[in-house]
Protein backbone atom coordinates (compact mmCIF):
# COMPACT_ATOMS: atom_id res chain seq x y z
CA UNK A 1 0.00 0.00 0.00
CA UNK A 2 2.96 2.26 -0.28
CA UNK A 3 2.03 2.69 -3.92
CA UNK A 4 0.47 6.01 -3.03
CA UNK A 5 3.94 7.52 -2.62
CA UNK A 6 4.85 6.58 -6.14
CA UNK A 7 1.58 7.86 -7.50
CA UNK A 8 1.91 11.07 -5.56
CA UNK A 9 5.35 11.52 -7.09
CA UNK A 10 3.86 10.85 -10.49
CA UNK A 11 1.27 13.55 -9.97
CA UNK A 12 3.91 15.98 -8.77
CA UNK A 13 6.02 15.24 -11.85
CA UNK A 14 3.12 15.92 -14.15
CA UNK A 15 2.29 19.13 -12.37
CA UNK A 16 5.88 20.28 -12.22
CA UNK A 17 5.66 22.19 -15.45
CA UNK A 18 2.35 23.88 -14.88
CA UNK A 19 2.19 27.47 -13.77
CA UNK A 20 2.08 28.30 -10.10
CA UNK A 21 -1.42 28.04 -8.88
CA UNK A 22 -2.93 31.04 -7.24
CA UNK A 23 -3.02 30.78 -3.50
CA UNK A 24 -6.08 29.12 -2.13
CA UNK A 25 -7.16 32.07 -0.08
CA UNK A 26 -9.85 34.02 -1.81
CA UNK A 27 -8.47 37.26 -3.23
CA UNK A 28 -10.10 40.02 -5.19
CA UNK A 29 -9.16 40.28 -8.87
CA UNK A 30 -10.19 43.08 -11.20
CA UNK A 31 -12.40 41.96 -14.06
CA UNK A 32 -10.51 41.48 -17.34
CA UNK A 33 -11.81 43.65 -20.18
CA UNK A 34 -10.21 42.60 -23.45
CA UNK A 35 -10.19 45.28 -26.12
CA UNK A 36 -13.18 45.04 -28.41
CA UNK A 37 -11.32 44.57 -31.68
CA UNK A 38 -13.38 45.78 -34.64
CA UNK A 39 -13.87 43.38 -37.52
CA UNK A 40 -12.26 45.78 -39.97
CA UNK A 41 -9.07 45.52 -37.88
CA UNK A 42 -9.10 41.78 -37.19
CA UNK A 43 -9.69 41.19 -40.91
CA UNK A 44 -6.73 43.26 -41.98
CA UNK A 45 -4.05 43.99 -39.42
CA UNK A 46 -2.15 42.27 -36.62
CA UNK A 47 -3.42 42.41 -33.03
CA UNK A 48 -2.98 45.47 -30.82
CA UNK A 49 -0.14 45.94 -28.34
CA UNK A 50 -1.15 45.61 -24.68
CA UNK A 51 1.71 45.67 -22.16
CA UNK A 52 1.91 42.54 -20.03
CA UNK A 53 2.18 44.60 -16.89
CA UNK A 54 -0.96 46.61 -17.56
CA UNK A 55 -3.81 44.36 -18.69
CA UNK A 56 -7.13 45.99 -19.50
CA UNK A 57 -9.71 45.65 -16.73
CA UNK A 58 -13.20 47.02 -16.20
CA UNK A 59 -12.08 48.79 -13.04
CA UNK A 60 -8.83 50.09 -14.54
CA UNK A 61 -10.58 51.58 -17.56
CA UNK A 62 -13.27 53.18 -15.38
CA UNK A 63 -10.61 54.72 -13.17
CA UNK A 64 -8.63 55.90 -16.17
CA UNK A 65 -11.70 57.55 -17.63
CA UNK A 66 -12.41 59.40 -14.39
CA UNK A 67 -8.80 60.59 -14.23
CA UNK A 68 -8.81 61.61 -17.89
CA UNK A 69 -11.68 64.02 -17.27
CA UNK A 70 -10.52 65.16 -13.82
CA UNK A 71 -9.03 68.64 -13.42
CA UNK A 72 -7.39 67.47 -10.18
CA UNK A 73 -4.39 66.49 -12.29
CA UNK A 74 -3.50 70.13 -13.02
CA UNK A 75 -1.76 72.33 -10.48
CA UNK A 76 -4.62 74.83 -10.07
CA UNK A 77 -7.24 72.25 -10.97
CA UNK A 78 -8.51 74.11 -14.03
CA UNK A 79 -7.74 71.69 -16.85
CA UNK A 80 -7.97 67.96 -17.45
CA UNK A 81 -6.52 65.71 -20.16
CA UNK A 82 -9.84 66.17 -21.93
CA UNK A 83 -9.33 69.95 -22.09
CA UNK A 84 -6.92 69.47 -25.02
CA UNK A 85 -8.19 66.01 -25.97
CA UNK A 86 -11.94 66.49 -26.22
CA UNK A 87 -14.25 63.66 -27.35
CA UNK A 88 -16.15 65.93 -29.73
CA UNK A 89 -12.89 66.65 -31.59
CA UNK A 90 -11.79 63.00 -31.80
CA UNK A 91 -9.81 63.72 -28.62
CA UNK A 92 -7.86 66.73 -29.86
CA UNK A 93 -8.76 70.43 -29.69
CA UNK A 94 -9.39 73.02 -32.39
CA UNK A 95 -6.46 75.41 -31.90
CA UNK A 96 -3.06 75.18 -33.63
CA UNK A 97 -1.32 74.63 -30.31
CA UNK A 98 -2.81 74.44 -26.83
CA UNK A 99 -2.47 76.57 -23.74
CA UNK A 100 -1.94 75.17 -20.28
CA UNK A 101 -3.02 76.40 -16.86
CA UNK A 102 -0.93 79.58 -17.12
CA UNK A 103 -2.27 80.55 -20.53
CA UNK A 104 1.05 79.78 -22.21
CA UNK A 105 0.81 77.97 -25.54
CA UNK A 106 3.01 75.02 -26.43
CA UNK A 107 4.66 74.43 -29.78
CA UNK A 108 2.81 71.34 -30.96
CA UNK A 109 -0.72 70.55 -32.07
CA UNK A 110 -2.61 68.35 -29.62
CA UNK A 111 -2.78 64.87 -31.19
CA UNK A 112 -6.13 63.18 -31.62
CA UNK A 113 -6.42 59.96 -29.59
CA UNK A 114 -7.77 56.76 -31.13
CA UNK A 115 -6.59 53.29 -32.11
CA UNK A 116 -3.50 53.88 -29.98
CA UNK A 117 -2.97 50.20 -29.17
CA UNK A 118 -2.30 49.64 -32.87
CA UNK A 119 0.75 51.90 -32.86
CA UNK A 120 3.02 48.86 -33.14
CA UNK A 121 6.27 50.81 -32.83
CA UNK A 122 4.98 52.28 -29.57
CA UNK A 123 6.52 55.66 -30.20
CA UNK A 124 3.94 58.22 -29.23
CA UNK A 125 3.57 61.98 -29.74
CA UNK A 126 4.62 63.88 -32.86
CA UNK A 127 8.33 63.37 -32.27
CA UNK A 128 8.24 59.81 -30.90
CA UNK A 129 9.65 60.89 -27.58
CA UNK A 130 7.29 58.75 -25.52
CA UNK A 131 7.92 55.01 -25.71
CA UNK A 132 4.62 53.85 -24.23
CA UNK A 133 1.19 55.28 -23.48
CA UNK A 134 1.87 54.85 -19.77
CA UNK A 135 5.03 56.93 -20.00
CA UNK A 136 3.37 59.52 -22.21
CA UNK A 137 0.72 60.16 -19.56
CA UNK A 138 3.39 61.29 -17.09
CA UNK A 139 4.48 64.25 -19.19
CA UNK A 140 1.46 66.60 -19.58
CA UNK A 141 0.81 66.54 -15.84
CA UNK A 142 4.26 67.84 -14.97
CA UNK A 143 4.96 69.92 -18.08
CA UNK A 144 5.18 73.58 -16.93
CA UNK A 145 3.21 74.87 -19.91
CA UNK A 146 0.57 72.17 -19.68
CA UNK A 147 -0.86 71.04 -16.32
CA UNK A 148 2.17 72.38 -14.44
CA UNK A 149 1.73 69.97 -11.56
CA UNK A 150 4.11 68.19 -9.29
CA UNK A 151 3.28 64.49 -9.43
CA UNK A 152 3.76 64.16 -5.66
CA UNK A 153 1.06 66.80 -5.14
CA UNK A 154 -1.25 65.08 -7.61
CA UNK A 155 -0.81 61.75 -5.84
CA UNK A 156 -1.47 63.43 -2.48
CA UNK A 157 -4.66 65.04 -3.79
CA UNK A 158 -5.87 61.73 -5.22
CA UNK A 159 -5.00 59.90 -2.01
CA UNK A 160 -6.93 62.44 0.07
CA UNK A 161 -9.98 62.16 -2.18
CA UNK A 162 -13.09 60.39 -0.93
CA UNK A 163 -13.36 58.05 -3.89
CA UNK A 164 -9.99 57.49 -5.52
CA UNK A 165 -8.33 55.19 -2.96
CA UNK A 166 -11.17 52.69 -3.30
CA UNK A 167 -11.17 53.01 -7.10
CA UNK A 168 -7.42 52.30 -7.18
CA UNK A 169 -7.96 49.29 -4.90
CA UNK A 170 -10.58 47.96 -7.29
CA UNK A 171 -8.33 48.55 -10.30
CA UNK A 172 -4.95 47.57 -8.90
CA UNK A 173 -5.60 45.79 -5.58
CA UNK A 174 -4.01 48.56 -3.57
CA UNK A 175 -5.42 51.80 -2.29
CA UNK A 176 -1.93 53.28 -2.11
CA UNK A 177 -1.90 55.62 -5.07
CA UNK A 178 1.25 56.15 -7.16
CA UNK A 179 2.16 58.03 -10.30
CA UNK A 180 2.72 54.69 -12.04
CA UNK A 181 -0.73 53.35 -11.22
CA UNK A 182 -2.34 56.64 -12.20
CA UNK A 183 -0.75 56.59 -15.63
CA UNK A 184 -1.51 52.88 -16.04
CA UNK A 185 -5.20 53.60 -15.52
CA UNK A 186 -5.16 56.52 -17.97
CA UNK A 187 -3.40 54.34 -20.56
CA UNK A 188 -6.03 51.61 -20.12
CA UNK A 189 -8.78 54.11 -20.84
CA UNK A 190 -6.92 55.53 -23.83
CA UNK A 191 -6.57 52.04 -25.35
CA UNK A 192 -10.36 51.70 -25.35
CA UNK A 193 -10.67 54.75 -27.64
CA UNK A 194 -11.23 52.75 -30.80
CA UNK A 195 -12.59 54.29 -33.98
CA UNK A 196 -13.58 51.89 -36.75
CA UNK A 197 -17.02 52.89 -37.95
CA UNK A 198 -16.47 55.35 -40.76
CA UNK A 199 -18.30 55.26 -44.05
CA UNK A 200 -15.16 53.79 -45.59
CA UNK A 201 -15.02 51.05 -42.94
CA UNK A 202 -18.59 50.13 -43.80
CA UNK A 203 -17.71 50.25 -47.51
CA UNK A 204 -14.85 47.82 -46.86
CA UNK A 205 -17.25 45.50 -45.05
CA UNK A 206 -19.71 45.68 -47.93
CA UNK A 207 -22.21 47.73 -45.96
CA UNK A 208 -21.96 51.06 -47.79
CA UNK A 209 -21.17 52.36 -51.25
CA UNK A 210 -18.89 55.19 -52.26
CA UNK A 211 -20.08 57.95 -54.55
CA UNK A 212 -18.23 58.22 -57.89
CA UNK A 213 -16.45 61.29 -56.50
CA UNK A 214 -15.31 59.44 -53.36
CA UNK A 215 -14.20 56.48 -55.47
CA UNK A 216 -12.17 58.77 -57.71
CA UNK A 217 -10.73 60.36 -54.60
CA UNK A 218 -9.58 56.94 -53.41
CA UNK A 219 -7.93 56.45 -56.81
CA UNK A 220 -6.12 59.78 -56.44
CA UNK A 221 -4.99 58.65 -52.98
CA UNK A 222 -3.70 55.31 -54.32
CA UNK A 223 -2.24 56.53 -57.63
CA UNK A 224 1.52 57.02 -57.58
CA UNK A 225 1.10 59.47 -60.49
CA UNK A 226 -1.39 61.57 -58.51
CA UNK A 227 -1.72 61.84 -54.73
CA UNK A 228 0.50 58.88 -53.78
CA UNK A 229 -0.74 59.26 -50.20
CA UNK A 230 -0.79 55.54 -49.43
CA UNK A 231 2.90 54.98 -48.86
CA UNK A 232 2.61 56.77 -45.50
CA UNK A 233 -1.10 56.92 -44.76
CA UNK A 234 -2.42 53.36 -45.06
CA UNK A 235 -4.70 51.93 -47.70
CA UNK A 236 -7.93 49.91 -47.81
CA UNK A 237 -5.99 46.94 -46.38
CA UNK A 238 -4.52 49.03 -43.56
CA UNK A 239 -7.47 50.79 -41.91
CA UNK A 240 -5.24 52.64 -39.44
CA UNK A 241 -4.66 55.20 -42.22
CA UNK A 242 -1.15 55.85 -40.95
CA UNK A 243 2.17 54.01 -40.84
CA UNK A 244 2.97 55.60 -37.44
CA UNK A 245 6.45 56.17 -38.86
CA UNK A 246 8.48 59.41 -38.92
CA UNK A 247 8.88 61.41 -42.12
CA UNK A 248 9.97 64.85 -43.19
CA UNK A 249 7.03 65.70 -45.43
CA UNK A 250 8.58 68.86 -46.84
CA UNK A 251 6.90 71.50 -44.70
CA UNK A 252 9.99 73.70 -44.29
CA UNK A 253 13.37 74.35 -45.87
CA UNK A 254 14.87 74.97 -42.42
CA UNK A 255 13.61 73.69 -39.09
CA UNK A 256 12.56 75.57 -35.99
CA UNK A 257 11.35 72.26 -34.52
CA UNK A 258 13.69 69.30 -35.05
CA UNK A 259 10.98 66.71 -34.38
CA UNK A 260 12.40 63.19 -34.15
CA UNK A 261 15.91 64.63 -34.53
CA UNK A 262 15.47 66.45 -31.24
CA UNK A 263 14.77 63.10 -29.58
CA UNK A 264 17.40 60.90 -31.24
CA UNK A 265 20.07 63.57 -31.62
CA UNK A 266 20.65 62.24 -35.13
CA UNK A 267 20.72 65.10 -37.68
CA UNK A 268 19.31 62.75 -40.33
CA UNK A 269 16.10 62.66 -38.24
CA UNK A 270 15.71 66.45 -38.20
CA UNK A 271 12.34 67.69 -39.40
CA UNK A 272 10.73 64.25 -39.14
CA UNK A 273 7.34 63.87 -37.47
CA UNK A 274 5.07 60.88 -37.08
CA UNK A 275 2.45 60.45 -39.79
CA UNK A 276 -0.91 61.14 -38.16
CA UNK A 277 -3.90 58.99 -39.01
CA UNK A 278 -6.23 60.43 -41.65
CA UNK A 279 -9.19 58.92 -39.83
CA UNK A 280 -11.54 61.56 -38.36
CA UNK A 281 -9.86 64.44 -40.21
CA UNK A 282 -13.21 66.19 -40.33
CA UNK A 283 -12.98 66.81 -36.57
CA UNK A 284 -9.27 67.41 -36.01
CA UNK A 285 -8.41 70.71 -37.71
CA UNK A 286 -6.05 72.49 -37.67
CA UNK A 287 -3.41 70.21 -39.16
CA UNK A 288 0.31 69.33 -38.99
CA UNK A 289 2.52 69.11 -35.89
CA UNK A 290 2.25 72.87 -35.36
CA UNK A 291 -1.34 73.25 -36.52
CA UNK A 292 -0.26 75.56 -39.35
CA UNK A 293 -3.02 74.59 -41.78
CA UNK A 294 -6.55 75.56 -40.79
CA UNK A 295 -8.33 73.51 -43.44
CA UNK A 296 -8.08 70.25 -45.32
CA UNK A 297 -7.97 72.24 -48.56
CA UNK A 298 -4.80 73.94 -47.36
CA UNK A 299 -3.25 70.56 -46.56
CA UNK A 300 -4.06 69.17 -49.99
CA UNK A 301 -2.75 72.35 -51.63
CA UNK A 302 0.46 72.02 -49.64
CA UNK A 303 1.11 68.50 -50.93
CA UNK A 304 0.14 69.60 -54.42
CA UNK A 305 2.26 72.75 -54.77
CA UNK A 306 3.88 73.76 -51.47
CA UNK A 307 6.68 71.26 -50.75
CA UNK A 308 10.01 72.66 -49.54
CA UNK A 309 13.30 70.88 -50.18
CA UNK A 310 15.54 70.17 -47.19
CA UNK A 311 18.36 67.70 -46.54
CA UNK A 312 16.13 65.20 -44.73
CA UNK A 313 13.04 65.42 -46.92
CA UNK A 314 11.49 62.01 -47.48
CA UNK A 315 12.13 60.72 -50.99
CA UNK A 316 8.43 59.88 -51.16
CA UNK A 317 7.81 63.65 -51.45
CA UNK A 318 8.17 63.39 -55.19
CA UNK A 319 8.25 66.32 -57.61
CA UNK A 320 9.54 68.57 -54.87
CA UNK A 321 11.24 70.67 -57.55
CA UNK A 322 7.76 71.43 -58.87
CA UNK A 323 6.38 71.98 -55.38
CA UNK A 324 4.58 68.66 -55.33
CA UNK A 325 2.25 66.43 -57.27
CA UNK A 326 0.23 69.29 -58.87
CA UNK A 327 -3.22 67.78 -58.63
CA UNK A 328 -6.01 69.13 -60.80
CA UNK A 329 -8.82 71.05 -59.11
CA UNK A 330 -11.14 68.11 -59.70
CA UNK A 331 -8.69 65.60 -58.21
CA UNK A 332 -8.20 67.81 -55.16
CA UNK A 333 -11.95 68.02 -54.61
CA UNK A 334 -12.35 64.27 -55.10
CA UNK A 335 -9.45 63.48 -52.77
CA UNK A 336 -11.07 65.60 -50.09
CA UNK A 337 -14.40 63.83 -50.59
CA UNK A 338 -12.65 60.48 -50.13
CA UNK A 339 -10.77 61.68 -47.03
CA UNK A 340 -14.03 62.72 -45.43
CA UNK A 341 -15.33 59.14 -45.77
CA UNK A 342 -12.76 58.25 -43.09
CA UNK A 343 -14.81 60.19 -40.53
CA UNK A 344 -16.48 58.20 -37.78
CA UNK A 345 -19.17 60.33 -36.10
CA UNK A 346 -20.14 57.47 -33.78
CA UNK A 347 -16.68 57.78 -32.21
CA UNK A 348 -17.45 61.34 -31.09
CA UNK A 349 -20.71 60.42 -29.43
CA UNK A 350 -19.78 57.03 -27.96
CA UNK A 351 -21.22 57.19 -24.42
CA UNK A 352 -18.27 55.18 -23.07
CA UNK A 353 -15.98 58.06 -23.96
CA UNK A 354 -17.95 60.96 -22.47
CA UNK A 355 -17.36 62.62 -19.11
Amino acid sequence: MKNWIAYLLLIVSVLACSKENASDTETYEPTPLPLNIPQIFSNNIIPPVIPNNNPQTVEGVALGKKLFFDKTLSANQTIACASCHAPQNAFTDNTPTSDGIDGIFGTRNSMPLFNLAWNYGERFTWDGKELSLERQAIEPVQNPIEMHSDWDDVVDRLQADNDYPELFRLAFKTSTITKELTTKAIAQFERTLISANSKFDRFSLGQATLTPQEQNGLNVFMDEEKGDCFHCHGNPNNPLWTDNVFHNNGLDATFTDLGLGGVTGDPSDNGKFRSPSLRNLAYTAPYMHDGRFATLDQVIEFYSTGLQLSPTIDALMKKVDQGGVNLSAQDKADLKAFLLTLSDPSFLSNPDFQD
Partner: protein
Amino acid sequence: MKQIFALLMCVALALTSCGEDMDDNALSNANINFKFSHTWDNTLINSSNLTTQTLTNENGENINITRIRYLISKLQLVNSSGTTFTFDGYKFTDLENEDTYNFTPENNSIPTGTYTLKFVWGFNEEDNIDGAYLDLNSASWNWPAMLGGGYHFLQFDGMYNVDTTPSPFNYHNGTARVSVGNFEQNFAIIELETPLNITKNATINVNMNISEFFKNPNTWDLNVLDTPLMPNYNAQKMMQENVMSVFNVEGITQ
Protein backbone atom coordinates in the same frame (compact mmCIF):
# COMPACT_ATOMS: atom_id res chain seq x y z
CA MET B 1 6.73 -4.15 -9.43
CA LYS B 2 3.99 -1.63 -9.89
CA GLN B 3 5.79 0.66 -7.51
CA ILE B 4 8.99 0.49 -9.51
CA PHE B 5 7.16 1.07 -12.73
CA ALA B 6 5.40 4.12 -11.34
CA LEU B 7 8.65 5.49 -9.94
CA LEU B 8 10.37 4.99 -13.27
CA MET B 9 7.49 6.74 -14.99
CA CYS B 10 7.73 9.76 -12.78
CA VAL B 11 11.49 9.99 -13.10
CA ALA B 12 11.15 9.82 -16.88
CA LEU B 13 8.42 12.41 -16.92
CA ALA B 14 10.25 14.74 -14.62
CA LEU B 15 13.35 14.55 -16.77
CA THR B 16 11.69 15.05 -20.11
CA SER B 17 8.49 16.96 -19.54
CA CYS B 18 9.96 20.44 -19.42
CA GLY B 19 12.53 20.05 -22.16
CA GLU B 20 12.32 21.22 -25.74
CA ASP B 21 11.44 18.58 -28.26
CA MET B 22 14.54 16.70 -29.19
CA ASP B 23 15.50 16.33 -32.82
CA ASP B 24 14.56 12.80 -33.73
CA ASN B 25 17.17 12.55 -36.45
CA ALA B 26 20.03 14.54 -35.07
CA LEU B 27 22.51 12.62 -37.19
CA SER B 28 20.90 12.99 -40.58
CA ASN B 29 18.91 16.21 -40.32
CA ALA B 30 20.00 19.81 -40.04
CA ASN B 31 18.17 22.97 -39.02
CA ILE B 32 18.56 25.81 -41.49
CA ASN B 33 18.59 29.56 -40.84
CA PHE B 34 19.16 32.34 -43.29
CA LYS B 35 21.16 35.49 -42.79
CA PHE B 36 21.00 38.26 -45.35
CA SER B 37 23.60 40.98 -45.69
CA HIS B 38 23.45 44.00 -47.95
CA THR B 39 26.21 45.76 -49.81
CA TRP B 40 26.76 48.42 -52.40
CA ASP B 41 29.52 46.63 -54.28
CA ASN B 42 32.20 46.37 -51.58
CA THR B 43 30.57 48.70 -49.03
CA LEU B 44 28.54 46.96 -46.34
CA ILE B 45 25.17 48.69 -45.88
CA ASN B 46 23.28 48.28 -42.62
CA SER B 47 21.09 50.34 -40.35
CA SER B 48 23.97 52.55 -39.24
CA ASN B 49 24.97 53.86 -42.67
CA LEU B 50 21.84 53.21 -44.76
CA THR B 51 20.77 56.83 -44.98
CA THR B 52 24.14 58.54 -44.57
CA GLN B 53 26.33 56.81 -47.15
CA THR B 54 26.64 58.62 -50.49
CA LEU B 55 26.91 56.08 -53.29
CA THR B 56 27.48 56.29 -57.04
CA ASN B 57 25.42 54.18 -59.37
CA GLU B 58 26.49 52.61 -62.66
CA ASN B 59 25.18 55.56 -64.65
CA GLY B 60 27.23 57.97 -62.54
CA GLU B 61 24.64 59.62 -60.31
CA ASN B 62 25.48 60.19 -56.67
CA ILE B 63 22.66 58.94 -54.48
CA ASN B 64 21.55 58.79 -50.87
CA ILE B 65 19.23 56.03 -49.73
CA THR B 66 16.13 56.89 -47.67
CA ARG B 67 14.80 53.35 -47.18
CA ILE B 68 14.95 49.86 -48.62
CA ARG B 69 12.37 47.24 -47.81
CA TYR B 70 11.90 44.03 -49.81
CA LEU B 71 10.05 40.75 -49.83
CA ILE B 72 11.17 37.26 -50.81
CA SER B 73 9.19 34.07 -50.44
CA LYS B 74 9.14 30.34 -51.08
CA LEU B 75 12.74 29.71 -50.08
CA GLN B 76 13.78 26.29 -51.36
CA LEU B 77 16.79 24.07 -51.13
CA VAL B 78 17.27 21.73 -54.07
CA ASN B 79 19.55 18.76 -53.46
CA SER B 80 21.83 17.16 -56.01
CA SER B 81 19.30 14.46 -56.80
CA GLY B 82 16.71 17.09 -57.65
CA THR B 83 14.59 16.80 -54.51
CA THR B 84 13.26 20.16 -53.37
CA PHE B 85 12.63 21.23 -49.78
CA THR B 86 10.33 24.25 -49.57
CA PHE B 87 10.36 26.38 -46.43
CA ASP B 88 7.19 27.96 -45.16
CA GLY B 89 6.65 31.67 -44.78
CA TYR B 90 8.19 34.71 -46.41
CA LYS B 91 10.94 37.10 -45.51
CA PHE B 92 10.14 40.80 -45.28
CA THR B 93 13.31 42.79 -44.78
CA ASP B 94 13.63 46.41 -43.72
CA LEU B 95 17.25 47.56 -43.91
CA GLU B 96 16.56 49.97 -41.03
CA ASN B 97 15.83 47.01 -38.75
CA GLU B 98 18.67 44.50 -38.55
CA ASP B 99 16.47 41.95 -36.78
CA THR B 100 14.77 41.43 -40.13
CA TYR B 101 18.05 40.39 -41.79
CA ASN B 102 17.70 36.92 -40.29
CA PHE B 103 15.08 34.36 -41.22
CA THR B 104 14.28 31.08 -39.53
CA PRO B 105 11.48 29.14 -41.19
CA GLU B 106 9.05 27.49 -38.76
CA ASN B 107 9.85 24.03 -40.09
CA ASN B 108 13.50 24.35 -40.93
CA SER B 109 14.74 20.78 -40.70
CA ILE B 110 16.13 19.12 -43.83
CA PRO B 111 18.28 16.04 -44.44
CA THR B 112 21.99 16.79 -44.61
CA GLY B 113 23.41 16.90 -48.12
CA THR B 114 24.47 19.21 -50.90
CA TYR B 115 21.97 21.80 -52.04
CA THR B 116 21.48 24.92 -54.05
CA LEU B 117 19.23 27.80 -52.93
CA LYS B 118 16.22 29.07 -54.81
CA PHE B 119 13.58 31.63 -53.84
CA VAL B 120 10.92 33.92 -55.27
CA TRP B 121 11.53 37.65 -55.52
CA GLY B 122 8.30 39.06 -54.12
CA PHE B 123 5.35 36.69 -54.25
CA ASN B 124 4.45 34.38 -57.13
CA GLU B 125 0.97 34.70 -58.59
CA GLU B 126 -0.49 32.07 -56.26
CA ASP B 127 0.81 33.80 -53.14
CA ASN B 128 0.36 37.44 -54.16
CA ILE B 129 -3.15 37.67 -52.75
CA ASP B 130 -4.40 41.19 -52.10
CA GLY B 131 -4.68 41.89 -48.37
CA ALA B 132 -4.03 38.27 -47.33
CA TYR B 133 -1.08 38.85 -44.97
CA LEU B 134 -1.93 40.85 -41.87
CA ASP B 135 1.66 41.62 -40.92
CA LEU B 136 2.38 42.99 -44.39
CA ASN B 137 -0.84 45.02 -44.34
CA SER B 138 0.22 46.42 -40.98
CA ALA B 139 3.50 47.49 -42.59
CA SER B 140 1.50 49.22 -45.41
CA TRP B 141 3.28 46.93 -47.88
CA ASN B 142 0.29 46.70 -50.22
CA TRP B 143 0.48 47.27 -53.97
CA PRO B 144 -2.46 49.33 -55.27
CA ALA B 145 -5.44 47.44 -56.68
CA MET B 146 -5.34 49.67 -59.78
CA LEU B 147 -1.90 48.17 -60.51
CA GLY B 148 -2.99 44.60 -59.93
CA GLY B 149 -3.02 44.56 -56.12
CA GLY B 150 -1.12 42.21 -53.86
CA TYR B 151 2.10 43.47 -52.36
CA HIS B 152 5.22 45.43 -53.11
CA PHE B 153 8.31 43.31 -53.79
CA LEU B 154 10.65 46.24 -53.23
CA GLN B 155 10.48 49.77 -51.92
CA PHE B 156 13.76 51.53 -52.59
CA ASP B 157 13.54 55.28 -51.97
CA GLY B 158 16.28 57.85 -52.11
CA MET B 159 17.63 61.06 -53.59
CA TYR B 160 19.85 61.26 -56.66
CA ASN B 161 22.16 63.98 -57.94
CA VAL B 162 22.66 64.77 -54.28
CA ASP B 163 25.80 66.79 -55.10
CA THR B 164 24.02 69.10 -57.58
CA THR B 165 20.22 69.22 -57.67
CA PRO B 166 18.86 66.57 -55.29
CA SER B 167 15.71 64.87 -56.57
CA PRO B 168 13.72 61.95 -55.19
CA PHE B 169 13.55 58.51 -56.77
CA ASN B 170 11.09 55.77 -55.82
CA TYR B 171 12.30 52.46 -57.23
CA HIS B 172 9.28 50.38 -56.29
CA ASN B 173 8.72 46.94 -57.78
CA GLY B 174 5.57 44.80 -57.94
CA THR B 175 2.99 43.55 -60.40
CA ALA B 176 3.28 45.23 -63.82
CA ARG B 177 0.31 46.98 -65.38
CA VAL B 178 0.19 46.44 -69.14
CA SER B 179 -2.85 48.68 -69.57
CA VAL B 180 -5.86 49.65 -67.47
CA GLY B 181 -7.20 46.46 -65.89
CA ASN B 182 -4.58 44.28 -67.60
CA PHE B 183 -1.71 43.07 -65.41
CA GLU B 184 1.38 40.92 -65.83
CA GLN B 185 3.14 38.88 -63.16
CA ASN B 186 6.46 40.43 -62.32
CA PHE B 187 8.01 38.20 -59.66
CA ALA B 188 11.36 36.55 -60.34
CA ILE B 189 12.73 33.14 -59.47
CA ILE B 190 16.19 33.55 -58.05
CA GLU B 191 18.35 30.43 -58.41
CA LEU B 192 21.78 30.67 -56.88
CA GLU B 193 24.24 28.10 -58.23
CA THR B 194 26.69 28.02 -55.32
CA PRO B 195 26.63 24.48 -53.87
CA LEU B 196 25.87 24.31 -50.17
CA ASN B 197 27.30 21.26 -48.44
CA ILE B 198 25.14 20.99 -45.34
CA THR B 199 26.52 18.54 -42.80
CA LYS B 200 24.90 19.89 -39.63
CA ASN B 201 22.79 22.82 -38.43
CA ALA B 202 23.64 25.69 -40.73
CA THR B 203 23.12 29.35 -41.42
CA ILE B 204 23.06 30.16 -45.11
CA ASN B 205 24.51 33.60 -45.81
CA VAL B 206 23.02 35.49 -48.71
CA ASN B 207 24.11 38.91 -49.89
CA MET B 208 22.13 41.53 -51.76
CA ASN B 209 24.29 43.85 -53.84
CA ILE B 210 22.02 46.88 -54.05
CA SER B 211 24.02 48.52 -56.83
CA GLU B 212 22.97 45.73 -59.20
CA PHE B 213 19.43 47.18 -59.31
CA PHE B 214 20.94 49.99 -61.38
CA LYS B 215 23.40 47.93 -63.35
CA ASN B 216 22.68 44.68 -65.04
CA PRO B 217 21.47 44.16 -67.72
CA ASN B 218 19.79 47.59 -67.71
CA THR B 219 21.97 50.55 -66.81
CA TRP B 220 19.46 52.67 -64.95
CA ASP B 221 19.31 56.40 -65.68
CA LEU B 222 17.59 58.02 -62.72
CA ASN B 223 17.38 61.29 -64.64
CA VAL B 224 14.86 59.55 -66.87
CA LEU B 225 13.38 56.92 -64.55
CA ASP B 226 12.99 58.38 -61.05
CA THR B 227 9.32 58.54 -60.10
CA PRO B 228 6.59 57.47 -60.55
CA LEU B 229 7.72 54.01 -61.65
CA MET B 230 4.99 51.78 -60.20
CA PRO B 231 2.59 52.34 -63.11
CA ASN B 232 5.43 52.30 -65.67
CA TYR B 233 5.32 48.90 -67.39
CA ASN B 234 8.76 49.14 -68.99
CA ALA B 235 10.38 50.24 -65.75
CA GLN B 236 8.73 47.33 -63.92
CA LYS B 237 10.05 44.81 -66.44
CA MET B 238 13.54 46.32 -66.29
CA MET B 239 13.49 45.94 -62.51
CA GLN B 240 12.47 42.31 -62.91
CA GLU B 241 15.49 41.79 -65.19
CA ASN B 242 17.90 43.64 -62.95
CA VAL B 243 16.96 41.79 -59.77
CA MET B 244 18.33 38.56 -61.22
CA SER B 245 21.92 39.55 -60.44
CA VAL B 246 21.27 41.21 -57.08
CA PHE B 247 21.60 38.16 -54.81
CA ASN B 248 24.58 35.91 -54.13
CA VAL B 249 25.23 33.06 -51.76
CA GLU B 250 28.16 34.05 -49.59
CA GLY B 251 28.52 30.61 -48.03
CA ILE B 252 27.35 28.75 -45.00
CA THR B 253 28.18 28.90 -41.34
CA GLN B 254 27.83 25.56 -39.56
